[in-house]
């Protein structure tokens, strides 16, 4: 029995050592993965945004305000904005303001220079409503599948080449600019027909729901006049 007891002890100790080693191995791998995935640990930045003292402007919503610094969520990234005595503040009505005038959740445009640690030394913070800067233009390339005419406008249906399950109802009027691929203005009558491929720069129509207004159209396969065949003698 004594022999069994003596032998059993090292076996238990060995299992514990194996378990501890295994845990350490997993921890080491986890540390490696976290350090690989953490962009902060990598000084290189292929966007070039970490170059020293670059004038930049970050638009985003304030997530935190402390004395001398603001944290801004800009394009899903938290930016540290350092403010100082020289920082000027402008409210949404373009009036001079103070840092205390700003609140968390408010959208602002912060202008300044970016340091190597990606923080910004801010010169100017302007309260900016996100709706006021939105670009409603959409660029869609596709094929016309249906055209309907009315007194003042033409409405056609475009199936985009990117997603053929989708379709756009697009209105054009006399203000819509239609050009060929080389930028030459062309007539719409021959080029807004079913089967034609074009690029449309559109924005939501303010008058008709689910309809877009075409600001610019570029016909990709313009109608060309075929040469008259010379009669053979």
């Amino acid at each position: 029995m004594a022999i069994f007891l003596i032998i059993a002890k090292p076996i238990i100790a060995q299992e514990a050592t194996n378990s501890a080693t295994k845990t350490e191995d997993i921890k080491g791998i986890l540390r490696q993965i976290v350090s690989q995935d953490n962009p902060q640990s990598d000084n290189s930045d292929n966007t070039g945004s970490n170059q020293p003292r670059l004038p930049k402007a970050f638009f985003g919503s304030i997530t935190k305000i402390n004395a001398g610094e603001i944290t801004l969520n800009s394009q899903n990234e938290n930016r540290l904005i350092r403010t100082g005595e020289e920082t000027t503040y402008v409210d949404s009505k373009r009036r001079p303001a103070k840092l205390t005038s700003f609140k968390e959740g408010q959208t602002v445009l912060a202008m300044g220079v970016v340091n190597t640690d990606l923080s910004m030394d801010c010169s100017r913070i302007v309260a900016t409503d996100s709706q006021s800067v939105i670009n409603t233009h959409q660029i869609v390339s596709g094929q016309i599948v249906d055209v309907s005419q009315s007194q003042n406008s033409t409405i056609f249906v475009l199936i985009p080449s990117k997603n053929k399950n989708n379709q756009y109802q697009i209105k054009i009027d006399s203000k819509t600019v239609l050009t060929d691929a080389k930028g030459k203005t062309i007539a719409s009558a021959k080029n807004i027909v079913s089967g034609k491929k074009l690029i449309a720069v559109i924005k939501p129509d303010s008058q008709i729901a689910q309809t877009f207004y075409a600001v610019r159209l570029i016909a990709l396969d313009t109608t060309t006049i075929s040469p008259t065949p010379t009669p053979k003698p």
Partner: protein
Amino acid sequence: MLLSQYYSMIKELILAIIIGAILGLGVTGSYLSYKGKKTTPPSQPLVTEPTLVPTTSVSPQPVSESESNSNPLTIISPTTDTLVSSPNLTVSGTTTPDSQIIIATAANIFTGQSDTNGKFSLPIKLESGLNIIKISSIDPQNNQFDYQLNVTYSTAKIN
């Protein structure tokens, strides 16, 4: 006589105990060795287990659809979040050859074409403040690639 028989029995008993112990050790050792092999995780789980780590806690790089690997449309200048003091800006980049280039700001549309090497350079005009610039290239096969960047035009003094 009795004493010699007694010693002989003791010897046999000790021998039996030793043989039993050896056999017992052998069997126990084999069993533990087998169990150890069975329970020791192979190297594979060590690699797969960390995938359970919530890597989402690391804030992702702001990847627009423009920056996916399959997108040939690359903007060389300007970079996003650039601050300029002039309304006149040239957007340059590369894409597929002979493609239509469309640049849309909130107020204006600018068009051009890439050359046979896919390079393009287009002058545009900015509005005061933040400009969200949408750039698309459409190749002769009607494949569309998009890019978006923010450029701010301000004449305010930046230290």
